[in-house]
């Protein structure tokens, strides 16, 4: 029997970590090509999370530049988001996510570690595993980087924002009118529910090939959804807006309207009450989305179990800073 690993004293095995295992991975049906694992497998959710996922950035490239807008519904006015909105990603992860800074302090987030092996663990809305070979997963809608547009999923106490590369606001516009009007809005009302309004400024209809089809001034409608713990309501498309959006409005959970301005001179900081916590399922990490431009992530030790990325935001998401949490949640203040 060959050695499982190169000897620690060998020329190459200079750092054998004792966390390596020797146990049956319990593939579902390897003889027939099913190498997925179950929750009972020792490989399930026991992976190392200390490094980012490596590999190709093709998904991002593809999603950002070769967009497919396909509405799977018969409602032709429904825009592009509906099919995605109706798909619910696992709600068992990051249950502790919160929209409230106060309530997030001292809170522990339960984030699943990646599993061993090639199969990424996704769950459907029923909590069941979604299976598929790595190649299948790469092209599936469960892979958030391939969702045609940004997906915002709302639960009673949770916001998940999945984004792709071209959703990232690079701060490209210098037109104050555009800047003021072209924002998706996440509205939090006094009932602790959310309303998301997707900005449709400048949007026109596209066909499945991503080509714009001319239908005059008709634009995608706002898409609104309210969810509770049990179901996602159908997206409604009651409102058809014009080519400009009303000024963005954000309210706190208490119903207080928060006025804000765009970044730039005289910027008004968004309230600390609304850092949004979501889960980047592609990386099995948490992200923190803050609308405060220069908010820093500090005072969080960097180590196993806790891993806020410090410093400036890694990316910008439509005017929001996105910080990545590399591992399980902070156990102390994390947003200052």
């Amino acid at each position, binding site marked *: 029997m060959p050695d499982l690993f190169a000897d620690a004293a060998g020329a190459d095995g200079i750092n054998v970590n004792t966390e390596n295992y020797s*146990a049956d991975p319990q593939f579902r049906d390897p003889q027939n*090509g099913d190498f997925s694992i179950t929750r009972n497998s020792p490989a399930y959710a*026991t992976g190392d999370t200390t490094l980012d996922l*490596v*590999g190709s950035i093709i*998904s991002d490239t593809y999603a950002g530049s070769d967009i497919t807008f396909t509405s799977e519904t018969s409602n032709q006015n429904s825009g592009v988001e509906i099919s995605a909105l109706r798909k619910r990603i696992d709600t068992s992860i990051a249950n502790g996510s919160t929209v409230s800074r106060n309530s997030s302090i001292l809170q522990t987030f339960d984030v699943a570690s990646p599993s061993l092996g090639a199969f990424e663990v996704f769950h459907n809305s029923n909590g069941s595993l979604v299976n598929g070979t790595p*190649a299948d997963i790469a092209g599936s809608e469960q892979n958030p980087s391939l969702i045609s547009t940004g997906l915002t999923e709302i639960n009673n106490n949770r916001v998940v924002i999945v984004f792709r590369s*071209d959703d990232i606001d690079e701060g490209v516009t210098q037109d104050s009118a555009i800047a003021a009007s072209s924002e998706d809005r996440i509205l939090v009302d006094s009932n602790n529910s959310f309303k998301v309004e997707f900005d449709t400024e400048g949007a026109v209809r*596209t066909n499945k090939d*991503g080509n714009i089809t001319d239908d005059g001034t008709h634009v995608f409608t706002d898409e609104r959804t309210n969810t509770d713990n049990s179901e996602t309501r159908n997206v409604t498309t009651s409102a058809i807006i014009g080519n400009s959006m009303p000024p963005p409005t954000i309210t706190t959970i208490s119903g207080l309207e928060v006025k804000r301005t765009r970044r730039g001179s005289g910027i008004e900081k968004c309230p600390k009450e609304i850092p949004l916590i979501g889960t980047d399922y592609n990386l099995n990490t948490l992200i923190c989305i803050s609308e405060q431009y220069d908010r820093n992530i500090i005072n969080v030790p960097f180590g196993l179990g806790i891993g806020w990325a410090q410093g400036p935001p890694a990316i910008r998401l439509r005017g929001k800073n996105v910080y990545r949490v590399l591992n399980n949640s902070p156990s102390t203040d994390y947003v200052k």
Partner: protein
Amino acid sequence: MAKTLRYVNAKNRFYNIDEPVIIELSVNGTTIGSGPTDDHIGVYVDGQLKKTIGFNPEKVMLTSGDGLRAGGLHSLKFSIMTGSDSGGRTRITSKGATTDRKFVKMNSIRVDPAGNGNATSISGAIDFVKTLADPSAGHMISVMDGTYTTYSPIDLKGCDNIKIFGRSRKAANVIISGSASKPTYLIKSSHSASLAFMTLQNASLSAVDCYDGSVEHTIFAEGLIIQDCLDPFQRIAQNSELRRLVIKKCDYGLRSYDAAQCSHMLIHDINTSNAPSAGSASNSYGIRALSGSVIQNITIYNVTGSYAIDAPGSTVRNCIVNKCKLTDYGIKASFYKRNLVFDLT
């Protein structure tokens, strides 16, 4: 709504790479040529000054020679420029003498066997790319579902940075298959080519040959199924990135000639009786990569050879090695963490 659409308003449209992008020229609030230092108009593509034009044209025409690429989203900006100084430099005459950025999206080059695209074969699309002003600009080719029988390698030479994708994003739907008399390679790659969402099968040597002109090429791959080949890739170069691949029924697994980054790959049935030709077990690997590689979340099953993972000087983590017949080690690396190795003989 995606930023793409935010900026591509009703006045914009999507263009094909073989048609010029014609922009009506307008500079708000400024009469062109009226300023004392006005000399010409500068045209910026993606923030780079690409060309200068005089004041008279009603339209600006941009082509692939101006940096446009199929499948790309480009920003355009027009500025009123001064005349050249003694150093030959020009600059914007005054702050504000420039347009807002305008965005145009170029369609990818579509391969459709039914004839509804730009080409009916991948090689045809490649030939088209080679006719463009800059074939290496990173043009994108979208391949519709179908089986594309390959009699000789699809040669990407000169088409650096090209991106070839299965349009439906399902690897099983776009099959590039060697003909009955197997070609040596299915694809001869170029530098930094990207391949995604396709099945590559039935080559006498490699599915993708990354070695051309005595130089290894970097490859980016995602969502590929590669089977019934000797090697999935031949001699991939440093900085290659591979994710979510399935490599099966090949004589060899992945053999990188340099450091590579690999994740979420399923490699099984390598050099077994299922392989089209039995290779040498003593020199067969699930993965072999050189120092500096990162190999993570790989499942290796039923590999007969020397190592399941041979990556000296590299990091191996979150991998499963199961049911392999190995003469040496399950995993060889410099740093390995949380791997599961079971049932080696």
